[in-house]
């Protein structure tokens, strides 16, 4: 195992994050604050509590998941796309690195950034709502697993994308709608029954539901299903990446 390579990629990617703190940390935090102001304070005051949870508090897990999922995809896809776009990927390909080590470096750095952003948003949310996390360890575990899972998806996207348009296409047109419609801002119970059934096919719903369970002890689907969903998605994404490397997909001619 080339641990030095994993560390080198990880450190290099994290350095990029700290070179652009505004883009890396400030922008997701500011957009989250805007969500809190609009949905939490302005509209939230007129919303009925969901179960025993005030609407302002209810949206916190959804908001964190929204940001963690989109940031993970964006971080990891950009992380691997940029070297392929610039051509600096030649070095990774000529180095004694296995696909696993390369993925570990990029996905590890991407997930770390997303988890940090997730914690920052959680800290910010305490300024807006009173919040008590019922299952803290599960919440942290779920956050980390989701960040890794979506970073794997981002890595696939970064390898697949031929240009910057494709790079932004998937997060904007697929990930964001799935997360929004996966119950970030509402409980699936609030939907008409047909849409409740449709929502069951939305993978993001299982993750948001699981994370919300860790906060409030209530969820749309049992927590076991949510864990199973994360593991299944991660397994699927790892298999796709494995296939891409095996065939040299757009990396080696």
């Amino acid at each position: 195992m080339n641990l030095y390579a994993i560390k080198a990629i990880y450190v290099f990617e994290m350095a990029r994050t700290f070179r652009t703190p505004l883009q890396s940390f400030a922008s997701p935090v500011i957009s989250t604050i805007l969500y809190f102001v609009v949905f939490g304070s302005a509209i939230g005051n007129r919303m009925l509590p969901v179960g025993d949870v005030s609407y302002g508090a209810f949206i916190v897990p959804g908001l964190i998941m929204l940001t963690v999922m989109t940031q993970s995809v964006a971080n990891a896809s950009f992380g691997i796309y940029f070297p392929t776009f610039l051509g600096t990927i030649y070095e990774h390909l000529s180095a004694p690195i296995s696909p696993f080590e390369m993925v570990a470096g990029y996905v590890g750095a991407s997930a770390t950034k997303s988890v940090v952003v997730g914690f920052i948003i959680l800290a910010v949310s305490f300024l807006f709502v009173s919040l008590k996390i019922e299952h803290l360890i599960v919440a942290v575990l779920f956050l980390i697993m989701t960040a890794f899972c979506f970073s794997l998806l981002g890595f696939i996207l970064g390898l697949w994308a031929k240009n910057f348009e494709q790079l932004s296409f998937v997060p904007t047109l697929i990930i964001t709608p799935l997360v929004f419609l996966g119950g970030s801002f509402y409980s699936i119970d609030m939907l008409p029954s047909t849409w409740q059934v449709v929502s069951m096919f939305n993978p993001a719903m299982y993750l948001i539901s699981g994370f919300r369970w860790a906060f409030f002890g209530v969820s749309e689907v049992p927590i076991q299903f949510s864990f199973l969903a994360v593991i299944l998605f991660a397994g699927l994404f790892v298999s796709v990446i494995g296939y891409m490397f095996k065939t040299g997909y757009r990396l080696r001619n």
Partner: protein
Amino acid sequence: MSSIIEVRNVTKKYADEKVALADLSVNITAGEIIALLGPNGAGKTTLISIICGLTTLTAGNVFVDGLDIETDYRKARSLIGLVPQELVLEPFETVLGTVTLSRGLFGKSPDPELIKSILENLSLWDKRASPIRELSGGMKRRVLIAKALSHEPKILFLDEPTAGVDVDLRRDMWRLIKDLKASGVTVVLTTHYIEEAEEIADRIAVIDGGKILLIEDKSVLMERLGKKQLSIDLDKPLSRLPATLKELGIILENEGKKLIYNYNVDLSDSKISEILLAIRSEQIQINDVHTEQSSLEDIFIELVMEGQS
């Protein structure tokens, strides 16, 4: 000397069926500087890319220090440093950051002292904290070399190292390559500057159409294929060439003012003495005599033209 790289019957066919390398075999000796010479599209970069792991091969085997580059890729690749043709660097990263990354990628523990000495040797230490986008083209090329040397490779590949660089930098680069050889590094470079191959290479391989047309020690190559030309400037123009000179293979040029005699460097049957005697007996007055040896460029063009025909 033992081979450090063995390329055995390598064929590379791309998805569009274009054959980049056709059953190519070559051995590279440890410690030498070998220049791969060929026109654009000859297969030079493909060959380097295959050995370095950037491109997969369709058929054949490559061994680096006895290690198969496919089954033993970790050990094989850790012996190799690659300086690509394009100035591919992350523009926002610092010089020190990117060179440190390279050493890590090749699985070596951090060695700040070594990195410092590499950067100092390449006159980059003062620029270590500068973002790469602020560097000149020549400096960027040196950063690429620093990256390639950061893990102390035994073999260094330089793909067109002096393409588009000014004369001073080219001389610096040649000096650096010679220093590397002196330190025991095997250097493989591709170039289409004949002058470069002539200046620094120990051996020259001419590639075209995905095949090695010729591989030879530079001096042997020059001697074996080099042509020499004897030119004799005359005091007064000759209206016609005397028969004795014609029989010796002389031709008359420049409106009768110049005698030309072509011969091969290695041939001991050159007739220069007879020619001079014949000139004397014909009482022809000579102004000047000089000889010219054909350059590697002439040899190269001849080989490639032959290959294409």
